[in-house]
């Protein structure tokens, strides 16, 4: 039975200059990883304020993976790729 895809959420807000870069990073990495294993969405914190606070989001951009806040600030390409690869491998185990 195949594993459900990893759910990534990029928390951003209107007027946040750095948030676009986080989404861009993710798009680039998605080209290198199996796209059927990863789903992602941008979360506007103003629209989903309660959810953002529940996860512990305090600054932008933040990234959650499978409902867990993993990056509280902008990760590097390397950090993000390694984290996702590790998650994918765990899923394969």
């Amino acid at each position, binding site marked *: 039975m195949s594993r459900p895809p990893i759910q990534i959420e990029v928390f951003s807000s209107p007027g946040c200059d750095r948030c676009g870069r986080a989404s861009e990073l993710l798009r680039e990495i998605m080209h290198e990883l199996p796209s059927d294993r990863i789903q992602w969405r941008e979360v506007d914190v103003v629209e989903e304020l309660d959810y953002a606070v529940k996860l512990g989001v305090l600054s*932008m951009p933040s990234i959650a993976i499978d409902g867990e806040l993993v990056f509280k600030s902008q990760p590097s390409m390397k950090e993000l790729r390694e984290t996702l690869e590790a998650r994918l491998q765990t899923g394969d185990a």
Partner: protein
Amino acid sequence: MNGMHIGEVSTLLGISADTLRYYEKIQLVPTIARTGAGIRVYVERDLSRLRFIKRAQKMQFSLREIAALLKMREDPQHARDEVRLLTGNKLDEIEERLQDLQVLRNELRLLLNLCSASKDGCPIIERIDSKEC
């Protein structure tokens, strides 16, 4: 005799002199020691009790509840069952309030961070306000 007069206590704790006298009258605090001239002298134990009352009032506990909690505070080993129960209930209320406060604190922190991250001032607050209209 070491201690503070009612005016000093009032200034220190932000409780009016009338309220301090009232607490004594209803025996929320024990009879305060007097000088030979009949002037009240509050000692550290009294101040500690008054600080407790003030904190409990901030939590909107009633004076009746505070009186019961003070009994527990004076002699926890021999507190009656209903006083223990009340103390447990109040502790639960505080835990719940702390959780609410923590969420509120994080929400406000997030909003402030959003504002400082935006070069256009604080459009987030404006959007939230307009949604609530």
